[in-house]
Every structure is written in C-alpha cells, then in structure tokens.
C-alpha cells in the first residue's frame, strides 16, 4: 500500500481541525479559501510551539481561550482609510445623489475590521450633508477588531498617507478636522462616531437585521469559497431595499454568483452593483 505523504496528512489535519471547530462552536471555516487559512494555522502551530496541526484539535475543543486565539489569527487583517480613493470618489459623486432622495439612510459595512473604512465613509457623508440622516452599522465577527474600531484611535504616523487618500477621494475640507492628535495617536471625532453602531455579526451564520440602502463589503468575499460567497450575497440581497447599492472589493464580483440576476452593474470598475426592482 502507498503510504500517505506528509503533505497530504496536513490537508487531512486541517480538515479535522475545522470539523472540530464547527462541531464545538458552530463556526464553519470549511467554507473558507484554504490556502490563506493554512498559512494562518501553520503560523499558530509555530507560535504556540506545537508539533503538528493535530495538536490544535484537543486545545480548541477544551480551551475556549485557545479558540479565541484561533479566531483572532483568522481575522488578522490590514485595512486603511480611503482604500482605493477612486472608489470613494465614485460613491460620493454618483451614489450619494441617489441616497439623498431618502429621508433616512441605512448603511452596512460588513467585515469592517478595525473601522478605518467606516470612518472614511462617515467623513464623506458629513461633507455631503448626509451624515445627520444616516445610521451606519459596522460589523465584523472579530471582537478584538471591533474594540479598536469603537475606540477609533489610530497611529498618528498613518495620518499623512490617509490625508493624501482623503484628497484623492475628493475630500473637501481639511482631513485634520476629523481627528484629534495626541501622544502619537489620532482619535476620530465624536461627531462621526455618533452615527455609527459597531456590532458583532458573523457572515457565516447570522441573519439580516435591518433594511439597507447601501452595503459595503470589501475584501471579505475573497476569503470565502463560492458556496459561502453565494450565501452571503443572498443575505445582502435580502437586506437591501429595491434599488439599494452593494459595494464590493476591488477584485470581487457578483458575476459568478446565484444572485447575479437580481443586480445590475452600476459601475464595473469600482465594483458597485445595484439591486433590481422586483427580482
């Protein structure tokens, strides 16, 4: 008989670990893209001085704290303010006009990470006179990231490059008006925060919670397999009002998903889609 090669064992071990997590906590990472997941799992094995992925199984099963650590590993991310400034400019120039026709506006940032994207949105809404009528729901499944997002305190040294992006996104005032710099950190203005509700929401298993005029979900679907992408896009479809907008990440699309026929492409390059009327 052919012996199982070590590398195939690794695939099997990952499978076992994900099964265990699903069984114990209901988080189904089996629907995530495996390559990036595998890197993170191997990183954890190394960090925790384990000999193999299999050794993680009993730990996640019996130690909630270890599972929390795993969750944190899974959602270590990089984000920034006004990522792809052109996209924010497009929103401001073409989507906001539509939002202005509503007396109350709901916006959902799904997978908001540490919040930079959310504050960017709030700043633009404010400059366009939309913030007062808007409620922004900013969700992620990572509580650690949400805590940072709620505080809205970021390293001051990043403000220089954020200022450039703010201007490239069509910023009309001075970016420095929106934060208070102190001891090497920059704290986002309360007047922005008042309109944002940060909450834990897991796209793998949680439901729709309000009717949205705009949903922003950028660079989250790239981590999911097609099945989970379909499920999440169906959730977005359900949450959007007729003629509501969906903004995805720079490399993401609804083209290969089941909900494709329910949306029209509003702006291909900026990945903005719009919910059709009756489908």
């Amino acid at each position: 008989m052919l012996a199982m090669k070590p590398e195939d064992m690794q695939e099997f071990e990952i499978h076992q670990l994900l099964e265990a997590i699903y069984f114990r906590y209901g988080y189904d990472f089996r629907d995530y893209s495996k390559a990036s997941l595998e890197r993170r799992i191997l990183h954890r094995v190394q960090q925790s001085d384990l000999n193999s992925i299999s050794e993680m199984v009993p730990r996640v099963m019996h130690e909630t704290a270890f599972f929390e650590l795993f969750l944190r590993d899974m959602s270590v991310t990089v984000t920034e303010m006004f990522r792809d400034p052109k996209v924010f400019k497009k929103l401001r120039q073409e989507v906001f006009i539509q939002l202005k026709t509503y007396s109350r506006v709901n916006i959902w940032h799904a997978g908001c990470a540490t919040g930079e994207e959310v504050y960017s949105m709030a700043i633009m809404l404010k400059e366009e006179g939309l913030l007062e009528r808007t409620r922004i729901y900013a969700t992620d499944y990572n509580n650690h990231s949400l805590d940072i997002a709620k505080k809205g305190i970021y390293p001051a040294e990043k403000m220089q490059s954020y200022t450039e992006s703010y201007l490239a996104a069509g910023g009309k005032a001075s970016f420095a008006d929106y934060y208070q710099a102190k001891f090497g950190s920059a704290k986002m203005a309360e007047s922005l925060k008042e309109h944002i509700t940060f909450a834990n929401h897991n796209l793998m298993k949680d439901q729709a919670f309000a009717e949205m005029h705009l949903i922003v979900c950028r660079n989250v679907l790239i981590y999911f397999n097609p099945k989970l992408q379909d499920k999440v896009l169906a959730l977005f479809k359900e949450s959007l009002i007729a003629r509501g907008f969906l903004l995805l990440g720079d490399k993401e699309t609804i083209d290969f998903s089941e909900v494709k026929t329910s949306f029209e492409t509003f702006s291909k390059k900026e990945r903005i889609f719009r919910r059709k009327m009756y489908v």
Partner: protein
Amino acid sequence: MFEAMVVGVSAGGLHALSGILSCLPLNYPIAILIVQHRHRDSDHFLDEYLNKLSAVRVKEAEPGEAILPAHVYIAPAGYHLLVERDKTLSLSIDPPVNFSIPSIDVLFQSAASCYKNHLIGLILTGASSDGSQGLKTIKEYGGYAIVQAPQTAEVDVMPKAAIELVDVDKIIPLEALGQFLIQDLLNSTVVNGGETDE
C-alpha cells in the same frame, strides 16, 4: 511531468520577464504564476505589456479562477496570490510578508503544497530576499528549483539569497532561460525531485 511554474521577481523584472515569456510557444503545456513586486497603485500596464509580446496568454490573476496551461497569471498589486488545492487561484489582503504584498514566499508555499513534485520555482532579479523560503519549501515537496545566474541579474540580491539558502537544481543565465524552459524542461532531461510519477 511539470504542471506549473511559479516565478518571483522584483527590481529589474520587466526586462527579465519580457525576455522569458516572449520565448514560450502558444501551446506551452505549463501554467505560469508570477509575483512581481511593484507599487500598490500599479495598473494593468505589466500584464497588458507582457501579453502583447507573448504567444501565451498573460493576464492578471482573478480569485476563483482555474489555473490553465499556456496561461500566465500575474499577482495583482496589493494582494497576495495563492494556489488552492483544487488548482484555482485565490487572493488575500493578509499582512505583508518580507515587507511585501504580494509576497513571493506566500505564492511559492501555497503552490508547493498543491503541485508538490510537479512544480518548478524560479527566482529572478531583485533587491529582496523574498522567495528564498518559498523556494526551499518547493524543494521539500519534491519540486524543481531554478535561479537566474546572479551575474546576469539587474539586481543580484534575490538570486544570491536563494542560492545561499536553497540547494537549487539549476542556475541559468537570463539569455539561456527561455531555451531551457522550452527544451530541457519539456524533453524531461530533468527529473522532478528524483521521483517517478504515479
């Protein structure tokens, strides 16, 4: 038989890649995946330029895309490029590795566990040591490791770092790389990792 080749290149890459890709015939039986370090805001210049001068199809890698022979996939600026076990592509915005996103190590390591001894790793010119660890992983999985001869590289840091760390199979001058890829590799005068295929 090799199924795929992963290529890592940094400073000086345009010239090196042009030289190599323009040699490959339309029906080249191997898929090629490339990480070229470049500025985050880069546009489609690189893939469009290389596509124009190549017979094989050169394009930017898209998430979920199936990897096909005679195709060259370039990692988009600002994203890591990875290979899934079902031989599709995926992208991530995970933290930079070796200060780089995309990172050569990230591509090489994920490709190694997918293609095992059917994979070639190639390190070209560059001013970084990104890729050395990845090339090592490729060898551990039984793949084949090639490095551009440092004296023929615009910047020799990356090839030298790879040669230092990895027991490479071949060190080839830039001028001879194209020929090697279409003749020696395909005529199986090289045996991958000394293993026979199942």
